[in-house]
């Protein structure tokens, strides 16, 4: 029987399959051999351990990164709050007289009537207290300067704030518990014309003038008042939250 073409084909395919099977067998044998040979090989377990630990590390890095993101976001909002608070604090500090202020206004100078005292000395009925500026004159003058619309006031460099007191010990005038000496210079920031008119047509300035005290008032285009250097004591008072 003469071999046909398909016989050749089948033979070739069989041959190829046989080769494949042989290779397959060899491979699986070899792998078994290798596996047994390297069973105790620590290198592989090293590598496997290391792969596990690097995966753990990567996970930890992920967690840390999100933590840091959170912190940074918080910080940004904290900074916003901080800026707002600081702005508010600056504003309140200004109103509390804790910041130097500049502006137009007036200067009032009250001085003892030295000339009058000299002339009256030795004469009968001489009363030295009639020729000196008393704490009340300064106190009432400051009240009138406030009434005239002053925004900020200082007496001999002592800023007038809410708890400021003006009094005397003997012949010495104290403002904010600081000793002052004549002449007493009251500086006020505000509308110069308005302040001047109110003071000149008020009570205190004309009456001191009538008593022959050397008093002076000048308009100022720009004066600078120092900050209040004292403290705001709060041992008994508690702020009350407004219903907001």
């Amino acid at each position: 029987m003469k071999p046909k073409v398909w016989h050749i084909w089948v033979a070739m395919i069989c041959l190829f399959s046989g080769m494949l099977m042989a290779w397959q067998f060899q491979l699986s044998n070899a792998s078994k051999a290798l596996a047994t040979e390297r069973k105790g090989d620590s290198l592989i377990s090293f590598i496997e351990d290391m792969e596990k630990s690097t995966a753990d590390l990567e996970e930890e890095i992920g967690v840390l990164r999100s933590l840091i993101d959170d912190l940074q976001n918080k910080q940004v909002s904290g900074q916003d709050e901080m800026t707002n608070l600081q702005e508010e604090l600056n504003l309140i500090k200004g109103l509390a007289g804790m910041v130097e202020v500049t502006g137009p206004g007036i200067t009032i100078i009250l001085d003892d009537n030295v000339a009058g005292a000299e002339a009256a000395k030795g004469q009968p009925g001489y009363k030295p207290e009639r020729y000196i500026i008393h704490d009340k004159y300064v106190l009432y003058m400051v009240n009138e300067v406030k009434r005239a619309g002053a925004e900020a006031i200082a007496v001999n460099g002592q800023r007038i704030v809410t708890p400021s007191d003006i009094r005397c010990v003997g012949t010495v005038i104290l403002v904010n518990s600081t000793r002052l000496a004549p002449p007493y210079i009251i500086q006020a920031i505000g509308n110069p014309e308005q302040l001047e008119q109110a003071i000149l047509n008020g009570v205190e300035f004309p009456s001191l003038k009538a008593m022959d005290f050397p008093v002076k008032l000048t308009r100022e285009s720009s004066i600078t008042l120092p900050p209040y250097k004292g403290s705001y004591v709060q041992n008994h008072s508690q702020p009350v939250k407004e219903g907001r």
Partner: protein
Amino acid sequence: MARKSQPRHRWQIPVTIVLLATGLLLSVQFRTQQVLLNDLSMLKTEELVTIWKNLNEKRAKLEGEIVELRRQQRVLEDKSSAGMVAISEIQSNLNRLKTSTGLVPVKGPGITITITGDSPLLYLDLVDIVNELWASGAEAVAVNDHRVTAHTYFGDIEENETLYVTVDGERLLYPVVIKAIGDPNTLEKGLTFPGGIIDNMNTLYAIFPDIRQKQELLLPAVKTPPVWFYAAPKSGTAPATAQAPVTSPAGGPGFGATPGPAGPGQ
């Protein structure tokens, strides 16, 4: 034709089977090969060492990264806790100043001074009393629930031939009640010592104020927070918004660089 097709049918079956088997074998072969390629045990020792070295380097880098991230985390946490401290410090400072400047209501122990309508009271007496209260350590003062601040002034107006005492231009109705927060004893002693202000008022002006110590007083906030049109805080400490008249969101205090319509009413 029918005869010829018969043998062709016969050989097609074995060929099909053989081809199928070959295909199966091929796929199995391929898979085995893949598994073997992925299995470390199939690698040579030098290759394993290379992998190990790479992993070692990678791990060192990751550990370095973690150290750096932990440092960042610590810095941020320190900063944010410092920020919290700073914020609460500013807040308490702010509260103190708001209380002292009369921007918020305030409560505490203190005294009340009541002056009835039959007293020949002058506004200068009120200036004196309030001044004396500050000198005696008062922390907050209000006159007929009108909070006294750095800008508060006393005066008088004549209406229908009657002289009325005013505070910040507002008529005071009798009885005039002055409330002061502070140590009640100190405040009372500051006013009532012999030769003191109350003594003088009694003997010189026949005004007999009634002083009472109180455990709890409530003083209101100022009605209109001050707004400055002429006074400007020195730059550097000034708020960033000092360019134009500014009022705080709640219609609160502010500074302005341009003159306003008018000063406080007289």
